[in-house]
């Protein structure tokens, strides 16, 4: 038998059911892996006691034959999800010591289904970043390295702790959140799968808000099937979230038939951007060939407003964030830096509590909403969103799913892009359109580049058609072959 930490969720589920190993054994293996991998800085808080208690409960369930869908599966939780009585920081200094007296709907769903929490995962501060370098708790290190190099690479972001922990076999799966690409881009650059579901599919209740009209939680795991298993548990209609949608969550695994004959796959020409690395173009062509070989029909489509997606996003997301982050004021929770009066208390607390990138985005957001600029920026951006959503609607008249690269390049070095916000923002160029239109997007690992770094392909679906993404994603996954695991250089 291979190492317990190398199993997929589907395999572990079988093993637990057949009593090949216990939930306690599975959890201990992962707790040990977490402890040995602190060099990656993937966890902000480790919760081994909680994990062991949950595993013990799982073993009882397994013994009594009442296994739940995620029974005994060790998982990491992005530190943006409020977890009852467990420190929740959003990667920010300003949430120092914050222990929510409530559990987010998504994590509650998972724990009700038997998931075991290993701890809270590092992330870009308030999910603002594409490299996990804006975390107050320091950068996460990508388990992958360039061939023959020990340069530290970023694990993508903002769900960098999630991607790194899953790729490094510390957790079997992890929750992520995706506002502009924060699940798919880190998944791609660490060689794992991750899906941003349709907006409204997962409840946002109890997830620290970044940009409310774009935020969506989703799973990150090493296989497409594992993502399907996780999403089935995470998704639900939540009466506590006005934007959560009351549509039944289908049996995603049942939809993974492997058959995509006659499926129309759209290739949007606008994603062939200037300066796209040749290896990304080549990967995309390979993906097209794989799907064609599997019987899909390839159609060229146009999404003419694609190039405006990132600028529109960098108006809407900071605007919403500037308002969402107003509650961090040093009065009711988290950090407080005293001042001579209430205003200086606010100003000092927020100056000390928020990092530079968060401050920058709050200022942009405040500026674009301020008197005299609202129409020129915010309304303009929301109009572009209408056009971008319309582009997709028109494309879906001709195809069932879209295939694109996930990210414009592989993992880059720590510190390489921190001084140029716009070049950092461009990491989301292929993912952000999906958030603006509220659609689902799945990143599938599709092989390694010449330097031995993983790359991903993205499938974009129709609203609430995650099932098709899983079906097609598995076809790509199989065609690409198993992604090798990174060398465990980090182990102590």
């Amino acid at each position, binding site marked *: 038998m291979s190492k317990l930490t190398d199993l997929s969720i589907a395999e572990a589920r079988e093993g637990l059911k057949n009593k090949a190993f216990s939930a306690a054994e599975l959890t201990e293996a992962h707790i040990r892996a977490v402890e040995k991998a602190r060099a990656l800085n993937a966890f902000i808080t480790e919760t081994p006691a909680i994990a062991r208690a949950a595993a013990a409960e799982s073993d009882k369930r397994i013994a009594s034959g009442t296994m739940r869908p995620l029974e005994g599966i060790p998982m990491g939780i992005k530190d943006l999800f409020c977890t009852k009585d467990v420190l929740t920081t959003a990667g920010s200094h300003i949430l120092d010591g914050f222990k929510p007296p409530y559990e987010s709907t998504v994590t509650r769903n998972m724990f009700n289904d038997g998931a075991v929490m290993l701890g809270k995962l590092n992330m870009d501060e308030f999910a603002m970043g594409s490299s996990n370098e804006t975390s107050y708790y320091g950068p996460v290190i990508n388990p992958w390295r360039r061939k023959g190099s020990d340069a530290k690479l970023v694990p993508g972001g903002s769900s960098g702790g999630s991607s790194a922990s899953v790729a490094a076999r510390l957790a079997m799966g992890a929750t992520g959140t995706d506002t502009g690409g924060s699940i798919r881009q880190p998944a791609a650059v660490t060689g794992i799968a991750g899906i941003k579901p349709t907006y409204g599919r997962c409840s946002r209740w109890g997830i620290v808000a970044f940009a409310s009209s774009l935020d969506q939680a989703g799973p990150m795991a090493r296989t497409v099937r594992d993502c399907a298993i996780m999403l089935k548990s995470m998704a639900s209609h939540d009466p506590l979230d006005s934007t959560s949608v009351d549509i039944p969550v289908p049996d995603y695994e049942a939809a993974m038939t492997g058959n995509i004959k006659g499926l129309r796959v759209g290739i949007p020409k606008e994603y062939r951007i200037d300066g796209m690395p040749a290896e990304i173009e080549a990967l995309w062509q390979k993906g097209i060939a794989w799907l064609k070989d599997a019987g899909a029909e390839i159609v060229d489509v146009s999404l003419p407003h694609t190039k405006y997606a990132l*600028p529109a996003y960098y108006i809407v997301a900071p605007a919403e964030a500037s308002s969402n982050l107003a509650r961090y004021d040093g009065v009711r929770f988290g950090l407080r830096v005293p001042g001579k*009066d209430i205003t200086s208390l606010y100003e000092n607390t927020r100056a000390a509590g928020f990092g530079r990138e968060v401050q920058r985005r709050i200022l942009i957001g405040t500026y674009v909403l301020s008197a005299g600029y609202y129409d020129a920026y915010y309304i303009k951006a929301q109009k572009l969103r209408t056009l971008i959503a319309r582009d997709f609607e028109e494309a879906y008249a001709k195809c069932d799913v879209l295939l694109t690269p996930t990210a414009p390049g592989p993992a880059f070095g720590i510190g390489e892009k921190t001084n140029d916000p716009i070049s950092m923002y461009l990491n989301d160029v292929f993912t952000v359109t999906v958030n603006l239109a509220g659609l689902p997007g799945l990143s599938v690992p599709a092989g390694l580049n010449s330097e031995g770094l993983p790359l991903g392909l993205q499938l974009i679906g129709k609203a609430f058609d995650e099932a098709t993404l899983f079906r097609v994603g598995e076809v790509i996954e199989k065609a690409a072959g198993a992604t090798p695991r990174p060398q465990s250089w980090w182990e102590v």
Partner: protein
Amino acid sequence: MSVDKETVRRVARLARIAFPEERLEPMAGELNRILAWVEQLNAVDTSMVEPMTSVVKVSLKMREDAVTDGAKAPEVVRNAPSGEDNYFAVPKVVE
């Protein structure tokens, strides 16, 4: 639309973030670069386009008028940096 130092000062004040004098000028530069970049949106004629109001095409969910929450003051104030008798406390506010 160019952002100057005074604009940064005003916006930082609105956002309640203390900004040391020496960071105002560099931040003005950063904001200008980002704003210049987003202004490429002006190339699109949107005069006939409605701004997006909701991503999901569903109607607003409503609850019934029933008291289902509250009565948990200790939990509400549990994380507060300062407080007394289940109140939050702040430096004296003059009205």
